[in-house]
């Protein structure tokens, strides 16, 4: 359980970090909170030649309120976002989902963006980012672009190794659309604090319902069909069978299964988890 040898760099600016990434590409990994990367390095599933530690880059730990978005830098910790009053007031559902990620010690160190770009199958936040319409600010060697979360997270990948994010690119910020409202989150996990089998977030803001489901397809799902049914029946949660039918329209790929939870089980439990989340959302919406 010791990482293989690597070189270490601690750039002081995003520009320096981007320059190192441009030079080393796929041989380098960015290290922020380390709660996903370090376990992979300990098990030698990932053996970078260069670790670029971004923890001392000033300014990346800010949560900023913009006209239409909340902007978070790559060093915003999950617990920091969870406790942020502007996050609670402006982005319905994000704090509710964050409370289910890991445990307090992991959340105090782990970053929101690190969790997103790790994009582990089943993970809560990538599905939430897709469904809430988050966007990433991505620094490429020669340009900075803003891309929808779905464009990067709709591809099963790990730390940019897939085709979602080129190895020389760095996600510097995530933008969450300001959409206040009510939210309910629920998940089934083998053990609290571990990656869920299936999770669901349901948000309602100004009669617009959004649903995020993880753990059914290999990447997170935004579920507009389930959202339509939940909005139609609001404040009553729809029946699980109605949700199960709608979920079929929201699938983006094959339903996946693993040694612990079969595809059949995931399909069975996802409508129940979504129904529970819809009920929790309705309780808060009418309170």
């Amino acid at each position: 359980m010791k990482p293989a040898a690597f070189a270490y760099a601690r750039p002081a600016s995003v520009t320096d970090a981007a320059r190192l990434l441009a030079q080393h590409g796929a041989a380098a990994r960015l290290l922020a909170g380390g709660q996903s990367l370090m376990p992979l390095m300990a098990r030698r599933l990932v053996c970078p030649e260069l670790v670029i530690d971004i923890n001392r880059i000033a300014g990346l730990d800010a949560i900023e309120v913009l006209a239409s978005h909340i902007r978070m830098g790559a060093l915003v910790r999950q617990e920091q976002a969870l406790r942020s009053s502007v996050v609670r007031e402006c982005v319905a559902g994000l704090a509710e989902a964050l409370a289910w990620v890991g445990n307090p010690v992991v959340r105090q160190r782990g970053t929101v963006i690190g969790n997103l770009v790790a994009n582990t199958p089943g993970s809560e936040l990538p599905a939430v980012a897709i469904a809430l319409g988050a966007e990433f600010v991505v620094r490429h060697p020669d340009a900075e672009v803003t891309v929808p979360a779905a464009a990067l997270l709709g591809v099963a990948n790990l730390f940019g190794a897939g085709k979602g994010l080129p190895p020389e690119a760095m996600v510097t910020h995530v933008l969450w659309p300001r959409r206040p409202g009510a939210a309910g989150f629920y998940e089934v996990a083998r053990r609290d604090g571990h990656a869920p089998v299936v999770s669901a977030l349901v948000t309602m803001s100004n009669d617009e319902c959004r649903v995020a489901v993880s753990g059914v397809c290999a990447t997170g799902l935004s579920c507009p069909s389930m959202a339509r049914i939940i909005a139609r029946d609001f404040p009553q949660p729809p029946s699980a069978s109605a949700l199960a039918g709608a979920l079929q329209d929201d699938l983006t790929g094959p339903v996946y299964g693993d040694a612990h939870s079969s595809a059949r089980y995931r399909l069975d439990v996802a409508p129940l988890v979504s129904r529970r989340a819809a009920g929790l959302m309705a309780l808060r919406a009418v309170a």
Partner: protein
Amino acid sequence: MTVDDVPRRARVRARYLLSDFLREQAGAGGVHVACGHGVCGACTVAVDGIAVRACLMLAVQADGAHVQTVASLSALEGAPASGRDGLTPLQAAFREHHALQCGYCTPGLLVSTALFMSQHKAAAALPGNPSPRRAAILDHLNGHLCRCTGYANIIAAIESVLP
């Protein structure tokens, strides 16, 4: 960095983990290493006042930091060790409730629980805020594996020292 208020200066390889540095070069035997990949919580220490799994942090990342292990428990709790055995209130509660058996997970658990309690005492001092509910304690304990107690006694010990 300082480890339990003692300045430590060393040149280490980049791959050297904070948990190994603390045990092997800083003499902090209270840092227990079990899983080595962030699952069990046994190696939890405070880095600049924040609970951290020392096996998920490189020693070089703690360059200049103020690291506190279970040896600094009294300072972390903000309460003196007292009594014949010199136990802090949290340690005394763990003994009183039989919240440990083999003791391997205990140092990490004590460090993160001391920080958990100070956060919640600060919150509870605000008017209208109750002390942490059982759910908050269970969420906190998600970060720690204990194979002996079944957790019930740990929960009882923590509840007994909350305001």
